[in-house]
Structure formats: structure tokens, C-alpha cells
């Protein structure tokens, strides 16, 4: 296999640029700088180019993270608002009126806004937080740093990717303030409900803003994804073959490919919906009688929208989950002081999951009236996913076996990811089965399943990443005691919220109900308990936010390589440079998981850029 992946043209260009600017600087104040510490600081950066319209991947990563955190808090607050209604239906809560004004007259949540809150909570969490906030942050931060590249292949496109995401978030936030309320037909916005303003007030201006927000978001994902793929393919440093890439980068690469192949389909679905809404077409509409009028549209099919939506929707689940699993692989290996178990199997299973994710979308549609034969096919393909998932789970567990586990907050979250991935994944086996899904479709069982396996697990992956790479992002350490508090309370409340929901679902309690739980004997109490866990879990996130911003400015200074990690990002200086490495880009000589080799050395890791020792050279090249 050729290892000529190092791209001399691009590297040469970049380093040339660095040299030129360096000499310019010398021209300005001769003899002032003799050292090479300023190597790479080739632009005089203003506040605007450094912090706002930055083209530095590290800054863009931070922009994604902080915007994602803000959106995450909005999404979380919405969930607490509707949990208040679900826990104590109809009871007056002044806090609701404080935050929501006319949407909670006398402190009771308006049923329409309840649906809007559910919708926007889902949209924000799925897209703005767990797609942009997660992939956007860590793909940007880690792909160049872990591969030994000076920046992304196209820093300009990268900047555009962030600003389209910003625009998308802005539009979504704006929709919260329009008079008829934000979109309120569920995050999947199934037409005709989402197409007809007569059917729901949220399907007016709110829905239009939702669609434009998502269109901007898709542009962001596509420009970002193109960049991630190109960078991974072309800008790996010398010696960094594909099979020497850390699993994080593998996960980001596969995620980007998934996004590139599936998001355009959502764009199509969204455009057709836009046409149906404003131009009188009937892609999704047929035989509808609403507010006393029979619409002219005939021949469309609302189920067509669902096919298009879930063709994105299912890969999207893995777009959310895979980066989190990639981060988990890395954080587990570093802190267990062991190589990840079955590196190649981990890559293989990710590829298998990614491939399968494109042929399982129908499992969201078993009860739409789809041909039962199709249901059988989707049951079969969906249950296949259990196999690569099982491989991943067991490989994670074996990675811990005979390790020497350091419980950093990041490590705790990574272990949490594995636990949640298993718990949530297993209930997927039931939902994948068309015969069983009939009775569980759209019940709390589904809510429990996807929140645990995709929502909370990915959120934990994000947290693991933030705690682990915070020193790389900000040059300071986060407070670990607050980190432990954050982890344990979040873990307990996450299980406390979502585990009981399985039982409600089995009893047939439908999701997205505003009240009427008395028909399902005795679940009112359980609903209250769930809400209490949700509120506690929500509050403790503020501890994280506090820790984050406090540590950014006041945290203790981070050393070069705080976790004794073998990957390349820790060879860059603590203080950020645009260009990442002051001198030459390091060359890679080994895979990223040389931990605790039985070589008689005191240190228990060997960085990737360290040449092979004589002894290693004689032995067979192991990886």
C-alpha cells in the first residue's frame, strides 16, 4: 500500500507562506526576534479576523462549540418547560410565565406552545447541538491537529460553514419570537400538518423560518463535510497512513461522508415542502379538507415526505453518534493506558454501520401503510446493525480490561457513553422488529430508546471531548471536582429520566401528549419523578457552563500533554498558532495507540512522531 498521502503541494504552499511572512516580519524590526517562537504567526490579526471571521480551524472549532452550547441551553430549557407541564399537568408555574409570557398565561403552558417546545427542542438538539456542536467542534479541532496539517483544506469554506450554522441558529431563534409561534409539528415536521397554516398556528411564519434555518444548516454541513473529507484524504502528514489515524478522525471522516450523502436529500424534501406551502404544488398534499375548504391539491403523498426525511433522518442518527463513539475510543484508550482493542474491527464496524444506515430508513415507517414486504426488508437490514454495534461495545469493554484506568472527568463521560450506548442500543433490537414496533411506535418507549442511545450518549461523548481537549482548546485545565459533580449528577438524572419511560411506552402511553395520562393507570406519579430528575439534570448543566467559562479565563495553566496522550495534537504548543506547529510538521512513525508497551521503559506511552527504536525496527512492524 502506498503511503504517499503526504501532499507536498499543499504543505509546501503553506510552509512557504509561513516563511515569507516570517521574513517580512524580520524586515520590520530587524534583530528583534532571533528565536523561532513566532514562526507561523504570519498574519497581523485584528480582533475581527481572529475571533469573528477567523479562518483558523481551532478558532472555528471554539465558535462551533460555544454556539452549540448556547443552543444546547435553549433546547434544554425548552425541555424543562414541557417537563413542568408533564410532571404537574395544568398546575400554575409562575416561572413559565416569566420565561414564556403569553405562551404560558397564568403560568400554565399553552398546548400549542407545548408542541412548539417539543419541536424546537428536538430540532435544536439534533441539528444545532449534536450535529454542528459535536462534529463542527471536534472535526475542526482534531482533524488537522491529529493528522499533522496546518489547517483545513479550505479555511475559507470552513469559515463559511460556521457562519451558515450561525445564520441557521439565528433563524431558529427568531422563529421563537414570531406571533404565531415557532414550528410545532414535531422535529420531523410531517406534512400536511407542517404544510397547512390552517391546521396549526406554528405552520405559519414559524414553519417558514424553520425551513430556511434548516436550509442554511444543510449548506453548513455540506461545506464543512467537504472540507473534513478533503483534509483527511489529502493533508495527512508524512507517515500518517489511513491505518495510523486515530479512531476519532476515522469517525469524523465517516460522519462527513454520511452527511454529504444524506443531507442533500433533506434539502430536496424541504424544498418540495416549501413549494407545497407557497406555490400550490401537491408533492405531499392530496384530498385535504381543512377549515371549511376542500383544497385543490390532489395526487401528492405525505408518506413520500417521510421517505425523503428518513433517508436523511436515519444516517443522521449516526452522524450524531459516530463522532461521539470516536471520541470515546480515543478517551478510553488514553485513560485506560491501553491501545483501543481491535482497532481494525472498530474501523470496520463503523464502516458497516455507516453503510447500513442508508438502507434502514423504513423502520421509522412500519405503520404508515407501507407494503408489509418492505417492512420485512427493513426489519432485516435494521437488525443487522446490532452486529457491528455489538463488536464496538465488546471492544470498548475489553479496552478497559487489565487497563490502568485514570478517572478524569473525560474518562467518566466516555465510560458513560459505553453504558448508555448499550442500554439504548438494546431496546433498538425491539423497535427494529416491525411486529413489535407496531405497538411501540410513537410511544415513550421510542422516546426512551433514542434519547439514551443517541441523545444522551452523544451528549456524553461531547462532554468527554470537551473535558479531554479543553486544555488543547484554551490552554487551561477545567476544574475536575466540578467535572465529577457534573458527571455523576448528569448520569443519575439521565437514567432517572429515560429509564422509566420504557415502562410507560410498553403500557402504550403516546409521546407528544400534553396531558391525559390518567388514562394510563398510575403514570402521573412516574411522570412527576421523571420531571424532577429532568430539572436536577438540567440545573447541573449550569455547573458545567460555569466551569467552562471560569476555566477558560481563570483555570490553571495546562501543560503540553496533560493526559500523556500519544496523538499528534499534543505536540503543538499550548499557545495557539495559525499553522499549528512552529517548525516543521512532525512525521509519524507509529500508530496512535502505543500505550504500556512491555518495553521496560518507565513511561507508558510513545508519541506517534517518535521514530521506531532499534528493537522495534527488528521486530515485525506490528501495526
Amino acid at each position: 500500500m502506498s503511503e504517499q498521502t503526504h501532499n507536498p503541494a499543499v504543505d509546501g504552499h503553506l510552509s512557504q507562506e509561513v516563511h515569507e511572512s516570517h521574513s517580512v516580519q524580520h524586515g520590520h524590526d530587524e534583530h528583534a526576534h532571533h528565536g523561532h517562537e513566532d514562526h507561523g504567526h504570519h498574519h497581523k490579526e485584528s480582533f475581527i479576523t481572529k475571533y469573528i471571521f477567523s479562518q483558523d480551524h481551532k478558532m472555528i472549532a471554539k465558535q462551533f462549540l460555544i454556539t452549540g452550547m448556547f443552543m444546547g441551553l435553549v433546547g434544554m430549557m425548552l425541555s424543562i418547560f414541557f417537563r413542568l407541564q408533564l410532571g404537574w399537568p395544568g398546575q400554575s408555574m409562575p416561572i413559565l410565565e416569566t420565561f414564556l409570557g403569553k405562551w404560558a398565561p397564568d403560568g400554565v403552558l399553552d398546548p400549542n406552545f407545548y408542541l412548539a417546545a417539543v419541536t424546537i427542542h428536538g430540532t435544536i438538539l439534533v441539528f444545532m447541538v449534536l450535529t454542528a456542536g459535536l462534529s463542527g467542534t471536534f472535526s475542526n479541532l482534531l482533524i488537522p491537529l491529529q493528522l499533522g496539517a496546518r489547517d483545513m483544506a479550505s479555511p475559507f469554506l470552513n469559515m463559511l460553514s460556521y457562519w451558515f450554522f450561525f445564520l441557521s441558529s439565528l433563524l431558529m431563534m427568531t422563529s421563537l419570537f414570531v406571533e404565531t409561534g415557532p414550528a410545532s409539528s414535531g422535529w420531523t415536521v410531517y406534512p400536511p400538518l407542517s404544510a397547512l397554516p390552517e391546521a396549526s398556528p406554528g405552520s405559519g411564519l414559524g414553519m417558514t423560518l424553520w425551513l430556511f434555518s434548516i436550509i442554511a444548516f444543510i449548506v453548513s454541513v455540506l461545506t464543512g463535510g467537504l472540507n473534513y473529507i478533503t483534509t483527511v484524504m489529502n493533508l495527512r502528514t508524512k507517515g500518517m497512513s489511513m491505518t495510523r489515524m486515530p479512531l476519532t478522525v476515522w469517525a469524523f471522516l465517516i460522519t462527513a461522508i454520511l452527511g454529504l450523502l444524506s443531507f442533500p436529500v433533506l434539502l430536496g424534501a424541504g424544498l418540495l415542502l416549501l413549494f407545497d406551502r407557497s406555490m400550490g404544488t401537491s408533492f405531499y398534499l392530496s384530498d385535504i379538507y381543512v377549515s371549511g375548504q376542500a383544497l385543490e391539491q390532489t395526487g401528492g403523498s405525505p408518506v413520500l415526505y417521510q421517505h425523503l426525511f428518513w433517508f436523511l433522518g436515519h444516517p443522521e442518527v449516526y452522524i450524531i453518534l459516530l463522532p461521539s463513539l470516536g471520541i470515546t475510543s480515543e478517551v478510553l484508550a488514553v485513560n485506560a493506558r491501553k491501545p483501543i482493542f481491535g482497532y481494525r474491527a472498530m474501523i470496520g464496524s463503523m464502516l458497516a454501520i455507516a453503510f447500513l444506515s442508508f438502507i434502514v430508513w423504513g423502520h421509522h415507517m412500519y405503520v404508515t401503510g407501507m407494503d408489509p414486504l418492505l417492512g420485512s426488508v427493513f426489519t432485516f437490514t435494521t437488525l443487522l446493525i446490532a452486529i457491528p454495534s455489538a463488536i464496538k461495545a465488546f471492544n470498548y469493554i475489553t479496552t478497559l480490561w487489565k487497563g490502568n484506568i485514570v478517572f478524569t472527568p473525560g474518562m467518566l463521560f466516555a465510560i458513560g457513553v459505553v453504558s448508555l450506548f448499550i442500554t439504548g442500543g438494546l431496546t433498538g433490537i425491539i423497535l427494529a422488529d416491525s411486529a413489535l414496533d407496531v405497538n411501540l411506535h410513537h410511544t415513550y418507549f421510542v422516546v426512551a430508546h433514542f434519547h439514551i442511545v443517541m441523545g444522551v450518549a452523544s451528549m456524553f461523548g461531547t462532554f468527554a471531548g470537551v473535558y479531554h481537549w479543553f486544555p488543547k482548546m484554551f490552554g487551561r485545565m477545567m476544574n475536575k471536582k466540578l467535572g465529577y459533580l457534573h458527571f455523576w449528577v448528569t448520569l443519575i438524572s439521565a437514567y432517572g429520566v429515560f429509564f422509566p419511560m420504557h415502562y410507560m411506552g410498553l403500557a402504550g402511553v403516546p409521546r407528544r401528549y400534553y396531558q391525559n395520562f390518567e388514562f394510563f393507570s398510575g403514570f402521573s406519579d412516574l411522570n412527576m419523578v421523571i420531571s424532577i430528575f429532568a430539572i436536577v439534570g438540567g440545573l447541573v448543566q449550569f455547573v458545567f457552563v460555569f466551569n467552562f467559562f471560569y476555566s477558560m479565563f481563570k483555570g490553571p495553566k495546562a501543560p503540553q500533554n496533560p493526559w500523556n496522550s500519544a496523538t499528534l495534537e499534543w505536540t503543538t504548543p499550548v499557545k495557539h498558532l495559525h499553522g499549528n506547529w512552529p517548525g516543521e510538521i512532525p512525521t509519524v512513525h507509529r500508530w496512535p495507540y502505543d500505550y504500556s508497551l512491555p518495553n521496560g521503559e518507565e513511561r507508558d506511552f510513545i508519541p506517534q512522531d517518535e521514530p521506531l527504536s532499534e528493537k522495534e525496527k527488528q521486530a515485525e512492524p506490528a501495526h
Partner: protein
Amino acid sequence: MLLNLILFAVVILAIITSARLLLVFQFAAELRGKKAHEISDSENNMNALLTLLSLVGLFAMFFYLTATYYNEKYIPGAASEHGVEVDSLLNLNFIVITLAFFITQLLLMWFAYKYRYNKKRRATHYAHNDKLEMIWTVVPAIVMAVLVLKGLIVWNHTTNPSPDKNTLNLELYARQFDWTARYSGKDNALGKASYTMINGGNILGLISADAIQEQLTIVRGDSLVVDSTVTLGFLPAEKLEDEKTRLRRLVHQIRTVAEFDYQFKSGSESYAASHDDVLVRDTIILPVNRPVKLHMRSQDVIHSAYLPHFRVHMYCVPGSETYFAFKPITTTKEMKKKLNDPEFEYRLYCNNICGSTHFNMMLPVRVVSEKEYAAWLSAKSTFADETKTRLAKMGLKSNFAKNN
């Protein structure tokens, strides 16, 4: 307002105070020579112990919830033929995933606890083992193969029940935000319907000679009622647009209804199947042990007919008809006795988000003996009767005298 301001100030103060406190702790730790990135033995031990405790907690929660909620009281056994099969498949699946849940969580958290950091120990460099990986590829594959196969068998039984001449055809019609059930009457055939036939009286848009006459009168009347300000040109542009849309839609509607009228008058369609149909809007009554084929339609947006006790669920999609056939096997009376709950009712829920009062869209369902069912149904007035009454009120004459 003042209270909110005070609260806000308290929060800000709390944040500042915590930041100051944290700074003090941080200095103290630095003075004692502690490094922020190093995890002390006590921290490692504490977190390892908590991991072990959380394993116990997770299992305890599982047992508590299962004991409390996974039983007849909360999840009554299926009241339909295919539902019994579904339930046993569900139980099999649960056994498999519960086993996997216990084994994997136990290993995960036990390893995390057991191999917590120890300065004196070195981790074992153990990168891969093809045999082990083969085991956890093949074993899940075999288990999945069994589950897929069993699942598909039940799925087949559910979706392709053996044909039965005795099957009752019943329509569930959904709209924002209520249900109407339509019984097919003596002929056991549901009459044709069209959304253009819908009006205040004929909410399902059923087609019959009388209904056509009624609808033509109504829509033609509607088309004549034009806001007088339109003709005078006083209407704001936006309203004018609405009025234009309304009229355009009416024209489309009149054309369609006129086509039904032509079909009837030319004799190519009799539209007679709807005559004996019975519309019910309060309680759905089903005869026990007789297969029912549900025909589902929707007037406006996607709804979903969910009958959890019968393990029945199907979307109601505007523009097309969906089906679900099942056979109720337990009467409401028997269920009341079984659950020891005199208030018990089966229910039909809407289970696809459909607008503001989605949560209220439900109807009780009662399963009774064949005799009770027949008695109940014969007392109901038919669609033909109802239409005739409405026509009389409008001063129109019914066509049906001769037909009936």
C-alpha cells in the same frame, strides 16, 4: 417583576462568589503542589467506587421498575389474536436484551472499578484477538438471525391474516380533533367517499344520490356568497387573495361533485353502498371473536389510530386509505374482571402529532358479544336516514323513497 430582578441579582452574585471561591481553592491546591491535570489516588478510588455503586443502582432501578410496572395492571395482556403472538415475541426479545444488558453493564463497570489506576501496576498492552472478536461477531449474528426469523413470522401473521368471509369492515375516520367510526351495515361494504363531498352534516364526505344533491346545493350557494366589499374593490389585497383562493377551490369542488352527479344520473354508479352505513362518534362497539378490518382515512393531516390493548396501530393518511385487520378475543366485561377495574375501557388514541388538542383525540372501544353488537347496531340510524332528514330541513326531496 421586582421579585424577578432580585432573583436575577442573587444568581449573578452566586456566580461571582463561586468563581472567587474556586479561585481560592485553586491557589490553595497550587500551594500544596497539586497539579490540576493529575488525578489523585483518592479521586481515582472514589470514582471507581461510584462506578461500582452506579452499577448496583442501575440494576436496582431495573428490578424495581420491572417489578412495579411490567405487569398486568399496567400492561394488560393483548386482547387480540395476533397480539398474543406479539406479546410472546416481545417477551423473548426482552429475555435476550435483559441478559445482554446485565452481562455487558456488569463487565463494563466491574472492569472500570477493578482496573482503577495504581502507580505500581502497568496496563497490559493487548491490541487485538481475532478469536475473541470472531466470537462477539458470530454470537450476536446467530441471536439476531433467530430474532429476525421469529419477528418476520409474527409480522406475516399480523399483516396477512387468513381470509375470513365473516370479517367486519369498519372505517376509522380521523380529523382535527375527533374520530368517527363507520360501520358498513348489512352489505358489509363501505360506501364511496370523497373529500369534496364533506360538509357540516356529511363529515365523512360519503357519496349517495341524496348527498350529491345536498352538496351541490350547498357549494353552489357558497359560490354565490361573495363578500360585497370584493365587488366594490374595498377589500385589502391580502383578503382579496384569500377570497380568490376560496373561489378557486369552490370551482374545483363543484366540478368534482358535478362529476359524481353525472356518474349517478348516467347510471354508471349507483353510490348505494353508503346507504346502510352507520356513523358512530361516541363509542366503538366491536363483536368479540370476529375479525375486523379497519379502513383508515383522514380529512386533514396525518393522524394515527392506536389501539394499544389490541396491539393495533396504523397511520391515517390524507389522500390514501390504510388498513389493519385484527380479531378481538376478550370482551370489555372479561377485561374489567381480569384487571379488577370496573372503570376499564379499551381506547382508541391518536398517536401522530396532529395539532393543538392532539392529546384529546380519543374514543372508548367496547368489545361485546355478537348478540349485543347486533342489537346495538340495529338501533342506529343509517347514513341514508340522516341525509334524508337534512334534505328535508333544506326543503329538498329525497331520491331514496324508491330505492329503499
